[in-house]
């Protein structure tokens, strides 16, 4: 990638409840770098500082020490135009369906654009566009009651509420947690489309390695409040030693391929996408068949 840098975080630290007995260091010298149009995954165990890190992207948290530059704007300055920043960086929290508060779906999605002070016509267009992107039918759904929706649909509405701000960077905290497999797949497809077609820079936190393998251009591994490992999914998931050292899970495909190598089969462990892995397994199966026939013949 040779794009323009859009997120530059250097040596960022943050301590919660500073100066009390409950003091807790959440970030300690964390770094993150993203270029325009990239899709970045952040993985790491609970308490590794992922959520604290992403809250720095749109100024919910201000850098205590270290540097945060978003789209060229230095957030460690005293005066930052938070409104513009939050429009630029759309942050979708965990379980975003909790934040829906209006009675009608259309009104809830329109909340953000109205807060930006846009004229009603523009708001309407944005709501329509956002609902379109997440796959909700504007005419049919906009006047429905929010509480009558299913979990997956609610999450789509919440996502649309953020997209209606037309952000340049979309940040998602465990976007698929608690969704059923079907809604999970739908949502991932939407995120992928936003990244590829609408050229949004996407940063997402995930515990699901299949998602990471499928979506991310690059992966940051967080541990103990700092980034310990970074690289493409391929680089991360094929580095067996480091994976074990940081106790990072791998996609199931990688696990299967590693098991096969352990059993003495010649497979390419870098082939971790489902299709490639399937091909590798087919090869092993074919080889086995040939081999056993060979034995029989002798």
């Amino acid at each position, binding site marked *: 990638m040779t794009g323009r840098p859009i997120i530059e975080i250097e040596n960022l630290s943050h301590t*919660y*409840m*500073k*100066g*009390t*007995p*409950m003091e807790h260091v959440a970030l300690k010298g964390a770094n993150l770098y993203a270029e325009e149009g990239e899709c970045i995954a952040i993985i790491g165990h609970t308490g590794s500082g992922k959520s604290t890190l992403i*809250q720095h992207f*749109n100024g*919910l*948290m*201000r*850098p*205590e020490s270290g540097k945060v530059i978003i789209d060229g704007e230095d957030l460690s300055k005293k005066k930052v135009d938070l*409104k513009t920043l*939050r*429009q630029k960086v*759309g*942050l*979708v*929290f965990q379980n*975003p369906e*909790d*934040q*829906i*508060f209006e009675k009608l779906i259309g009104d809830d999605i329109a*909340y*953000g654009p109205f*807060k*930006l002070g846009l004229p009603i016509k523009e708001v309407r267009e944005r709501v329509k566009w956002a609902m379109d992107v997440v796959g909700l039918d504007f005419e049919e759904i906009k006047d429905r009651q929010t509480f009558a929706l299913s979990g997956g649909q609610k999450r789509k509405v919440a996502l649309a*509420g*953020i997209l209606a*701000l037309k952000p340049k960077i979309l940040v998602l905290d465990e976007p698929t947690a608690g969704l059923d497999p079907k809604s999970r797949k739908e949502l991932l497809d939407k995120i992928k489309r936003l990244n590829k077609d609408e050229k949004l820079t996407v940063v997402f936190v995930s515990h699901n390695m299949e998602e990471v393998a499928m979506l991310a251009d690059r992966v940051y591994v967080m541990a103990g409040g700092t980034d310990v490992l970074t690289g493409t999914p391929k680089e991360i998931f094929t580095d067996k030693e480091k994976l074990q050292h940081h106790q990072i899970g791998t996609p199931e495909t990688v696990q299967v391929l590693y098991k096969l190598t352990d059993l003495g089969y010649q497979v390419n462990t870098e082939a971790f996408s489902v299709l490639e892995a399937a091909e590798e397994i087919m090869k092993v199966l074919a080889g086995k068949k040939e081999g056993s026939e060979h034995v029989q013949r002798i």
Partner: protein
Amino acid sequence: MSSEFEISRSITIGQYVPTGSFIHRLDPRIKLLVFVILVVAIAFNTSYFGNAIGLVLSLYLFWASKIPISYGLSGVKPAIPFIVILAVLQLLFQGQLFSDGRVYVDYGFVLITSESIRLVVVSAVRFIEIIFLSSVLTLSTSTTELTHSIQSLLSPLKKIKFPVHEISLITTIAIRFVPTFAIEMEKMMKAQASRGADFGTGGWWRIVQRTKEMFPIIIPLFNIALSRAEDLILAMESRCYTPGGERSSYSVYKAIAKDYLVLLVGLFFSLLLLFYPFPF
């Protein structure tokens, strides 16, 4: 730089700071009892000297329980507006009731005497003392201990069919969920700020606007509270909770010599504050 949304930090109710001090290890029933009699005594004492004793005592308790005084101060901070308003009102309108002593100002309905000034100062200090004392109590006693002791202190009332167990259960749940909702509220404020909401921007006189600004937080919080309550009911019922059922307790308290000693000291201070004729 602390975040504008760090509200769970300023909520000290239901927070327990385990330092393992002498105060922490007291029998919670005795602790609660001493707290109650001290608060009553402080509430009735109107002398400068008596309240100075109360203030020193409550500060000493912070030291004895090894809890940083900053915790107590952060409890006082949100109360400052009330203290100030109360003080101003008392200063302007209570003079007629406390017209003894030297008269400083007598202008229309405003009458400021040495006695009414005493009232203002003493009530402010008293307020702070009570906040300090209750901070020490809640910071050094876990909520389970606290509710168990409420239940055991109120248990004589069972004879007159007072629902002691139910009341203590309700208080436990209420206190237990204060920090939880503070965290939820923080999350909700951040989530709504992320889509352009702003809180408390208009002047304080624009009450309607400021109330409207809170809707995006209050409504989801109600939703969350209700669904949490439902979960809690299910969790309790699946563990065979029956209202009105006879229950045994996991922890049984037994007061020992040092607890009685603390009770005696507490009684001494209370009686001193209540009945000793302080010179000023």
